[in-house]
């Protein structure tokens, strides 16, 4: 009926399709965690707008597939355990 291969009204008919969009490629700076300083307080996990903080047993890690490099985690970390490093 339409010559355009898109869904009417830009409806996304399945949930969780945003996972296919790896927004990590947008990043110009990457957060690097010093696991020795991290006390697993999880403030970064609360603040991260992209849910790109991975919770581990003793410290956090960054999901670089989705982290856009905004730096909010580094800004909020009370232990200064996260440093922003230029990409590339």
């Amino acid at each position, binding site marked *: 009926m339409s010559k*355009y*291969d*898109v869904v*009417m009204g*830009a409806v996304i008919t399945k*949930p969780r399709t945003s996972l296919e969009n790896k927004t990590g490629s947008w990043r110009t700076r990457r957060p690097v965690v010093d696991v020795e300083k991290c006390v697993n307080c999880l403030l970064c996990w609360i603040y991260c707008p992209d849910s790109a903080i991975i919770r581990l047993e003793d410290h956090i890690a960054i999901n670089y597939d989705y982290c856009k490099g905004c730096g909010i985690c580094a800004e909020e970390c009370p232990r200064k355990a996260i440093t922003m490093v230029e990409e590339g």
Partner: protein
Amino acid sequence: MGRRIGLMGDEAVAYAVKQCDVGLVSAYPITPQTIMVERISEYVANGEIDTEFVCVESEHSALSVCVGASLSGLRVFTATASQGLALMHEVLYAASGLRCPIVMAVANRALSAPLNIHCDHSDMMGSRDCGWVQVFAENVQEAYDWVIQAFKIAEHPDVQLPTVVNLDGFTLTHCMEDVEVLEDEDVKKFLPPRKPIYWVDPKQPMTFGAWAMPNYYYKFKLQQQEAIMRSLRVVKEVGEEFGKLTGRRYDTLYGYGLEDAEVAVLSMGSTSGTIRYTARRLRESDGLKVGALKLWLFRPFPEEDLVSALEKVKVLIVLDRALSPGAVFGPLGSDIASLMVKHGLDFKLLNYTYGLGGDEVTPEMAEKLFKLGLKVAEGAKPPSLTGYVREVV
């Protein structure tokens, strides 16, 4: 067959809404649309309909509520005028882009400043490109008939677009006419419950209102364009079916005397009655070859129907009830000029603005327009190709 009752335009719209089994109405009152909202809220308060009526603080919110409700699969109605339509402006595009088959009545009214509550078409013309199907009613009967048809057009699986029914403020909204209304059962048969294609449902999660990157955005917009073009056929089919039911057949336009008219006047809304009345009088008493063309459907613009309707016309006077400041022609005049270029039509085009802020066109003015047209058909030079009717004739 239906019953005949006395209704004002606003009441007739509300009565049609009452019969269309609408799931939700959200609207903010504004002159001259107010009575529509009052009557619908009375129907709800009296338990005559089980429509959800959502009171809001502005037209922006009214249409936003309608978009949400429409996405949930409900049949939805709203109404506004003038400043209210202007305040809805950004949401108009969301409604069409999200393919919400909302029906809205617009009681056409001038825009400020200066403040004016009377009729012209500046409100609709200001939102002309919002992607809604747009029809104009000539009288109260047509306003009633178009609201019922509008739901059927909007909700058609090939269309799925919001539709606006325009009726002239005060001239139609506040004038009582003898209206033939359908029986509730007949409306139910004509307009079965809405069948949404996608709808918000927690059991089947979907995303509505996502963004589209440059490599996709144009595809959605062009797909929307395909849908509004398909609505041309749907408007005609629905008009024919409505005609079989009521004896009042609707189409994209209505011509009078065009089989041999040398001069025709094209108009929309209540003025079309004045023009056709004058054309008939001039034909019958003076044998003048004049005709009247009323445009019911403004968007999508019925190109093919206009080309055939104007086949024999030598002079066409296009009346615009909105000023397009600084433009070459008015909105309707520009469309006709485009049509002439695209289809190689060669009649003489005169495009006059009229009726701003309730300034009426009388039969005497219509007669002067026809007589000017006849002189131009004989080769005379018109005083101007554009201008305000009062100043031209």
